[in-house]
């Protein structure tokens, strides 16, 4: 043992030297400021503006804008679209996740890639393909005109385009979760004599319920808010084929700013509710883990 070169003052408090995983204070604070400014500029500001603009002419202007028959028709069509597309894509999502995660078969990863396909297609193209199928010049155009069935520039076209756009949402949430979960619990249920349905309701569903709700929530938000694809197939007929987002666009282009923002604020409220539910779901599933 060498002689100690310095006197030791054992009571002296240790000064804060830099720990390995800590950033210096100035770095930390600058990054926090940069990040929060960025979020404020690009997220908080738009959020605040929607709310502000909708009420800028007073509550009454807001209510009268909302009470217009065209607006109400747009809300109805939006709800109809969601009511049809969300359950269909939910059933699909569960079925696809079950087939992909519980069985081995050839072409499995290819199938998974195909399910994601609508995510990488521009919304406008998603609309266009249905025009190519069912429009006047489309594959079934003549047949549809003969039988007097309207798909394009009518509600069915809007629903089909939305179905395409929101196709992957539920499946995408479920596949990774069910993959990770494995099927031991399900095998246990089967070995205890449960039927297939019984096993699904009492073992699988309780395990995936939060992810399922999460997927449904995102699917619904997109179904109600889709603009590009719907805009291509709708034809913008007021009171008939305008969904709420299209109604907002029409009002905005006609310089009816209060009307546009009244509609926009409903959609923004939808987004905020979606965010709150989504956060709640995240906390819930974290707490159960």
């Amino acid at each position, binding site marked *: *043992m*060498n*002689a*100690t*070169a*310095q006197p*030791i*003052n*054992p*009571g*002296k*408090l*240790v*000064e*804060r*030297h*830099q*720990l*390995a995983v800590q950033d210096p204070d100035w770095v930390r604070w600058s990054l926090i400021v940069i990040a929060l400014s960025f979020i404020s500029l690009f997220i908080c500001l738009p959020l605040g503006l929607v709310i502000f603009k909708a009420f800028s002419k007073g509550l009454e202007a807001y209510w009268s804008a909302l009470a217009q028959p065209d607006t109400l028709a747009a809300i109805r069509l939006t709800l109809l679209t969601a009511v049809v597309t969300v359950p269909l894509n939910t059933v699909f999502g569960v079925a696809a996740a079950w087939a992909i995660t519980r069985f081995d078969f050839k072409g499995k990863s290819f199938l998974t890639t195909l399910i994601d396909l609508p995510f990488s297609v521009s919304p406008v193209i998603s609309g266009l393909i249905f025009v190519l199928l069912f429009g006047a010049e489309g594959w079934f155009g003549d047949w549809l005109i003969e039988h007097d069935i309207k798909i394009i520039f009518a509600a069915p076209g809007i629903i089909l385009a939305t179905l395409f756009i929101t196709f992957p949402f539920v499946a995408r949430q479920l596949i990774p979760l069910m993959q990770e979960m494995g099927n031991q619990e399900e095998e246990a249920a089967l070995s205890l004599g449960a039927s297939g349905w019984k096993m699904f309701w009492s073992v699988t569903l309780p395990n995936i319920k939060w992810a399922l709700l999460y997927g449904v929530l995102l699917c619904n938000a997109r179904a109600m808010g889709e603009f590009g694809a719907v805009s291509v197939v709708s034809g913008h007929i007021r009171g008939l084929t305008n969904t709420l987002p299209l109604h907002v666009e029409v009002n905005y282009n006609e310089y009816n700013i209060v009307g546009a923002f009244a509609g926009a604020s409903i959609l923004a409220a939808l987004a905020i509710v979606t965010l709150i539910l989504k956060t709640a779901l995240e906390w819930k599933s974290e707490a159960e883990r």
Partner: protein
Amino acid sequence: MSILLSNISKKFGAFSALDNINLEIPEGELVALLGPSGCGKTTLLRIIAGLERADQGRILISGQDRTEHDVSKRGIGFVFQHYALFRHMTVFENVAFGLRVKPRRDRPSNEVIAKKVHALLELVQLDWLHDRYPDQLSGGQRQRIALARALAVEPSVLLLDEPFGALDASVRKDLRQWLRNLHHDLNVTSIFVTHDQEEAMEVASQVVVLNHGKIEQQGAPSEIYDHPSNAFVSGFIGQTNVFNLEHQDTDWLQTAGLSTLQQQGKIVHVRPHDIVIEKSALDSDAFVTLKDWQHLGALIRIELVKNSVNGQPASVYAEMPNEQFKRLHLNKGDKVDLKIRHAHWFH
């Protein structure tokens, strides 16, 4: 280099992880910080490294106060429990890392680095793996690479956190011996943390026993084993039989030939190999029954039941070489006589 810890204390909230630790480690020793989980041993190691801040106290490395040095300037080498190898670098680059991050004027040339890295990889006998990635290595190989990486910067002190904790039993045995030899060759002052007393005794030249944030005893393995300073150390190091004079073991111990009445303490610890048994000549007087035995390789562990008149029937363990046990021709249920050769007394 020697290490001197003076009055080190550390609290996590209300929990006192380390309470006024004073410790001197002479140069060139291979020291084990031994204790049950939660005793503060890893915290102490991380404080020495500078990965954690002590609330108070000083850390001196070869007489120099290093308490306020960042971990990067403390001149220590740290081997992490789960190795913490850089996943995106080859084995070679992992070992070279410490040399490549030196300030430009101290940084060796690429040729010097290559030479040194290969020399270190040869030292840990893994030069043939130099272009692999950590994910492609076994646990034992990763451990040795982590050690080579820490040695590359020529640390004055080598710190190892549970170095064998994550390894298979067979690999662990080999690596213990290997580390001991390596330390013998390099003679770097080294401290490793372990909760395994057998490992500490086998590898270390000095053992520091910690419990509840305090040092219970420091010394050479043999010293700690032969002269435990308190009941905790005695119970923690090796197997032991515990008797309590307050629990009416007095008569029984006297029968076993231990002169109990010197009032050296109230608690008696007896190592299994300090108990001698013989087949009882007089069946009726026998106060111990042989219940069962297990083979531990060269030794036999014998489970006895003491059936004293006023004491509770309880198990007592004895150990003896295989051959000796065979010569006794004992069977389960036999009554035996028992002699205690040596005991430790604690208050």
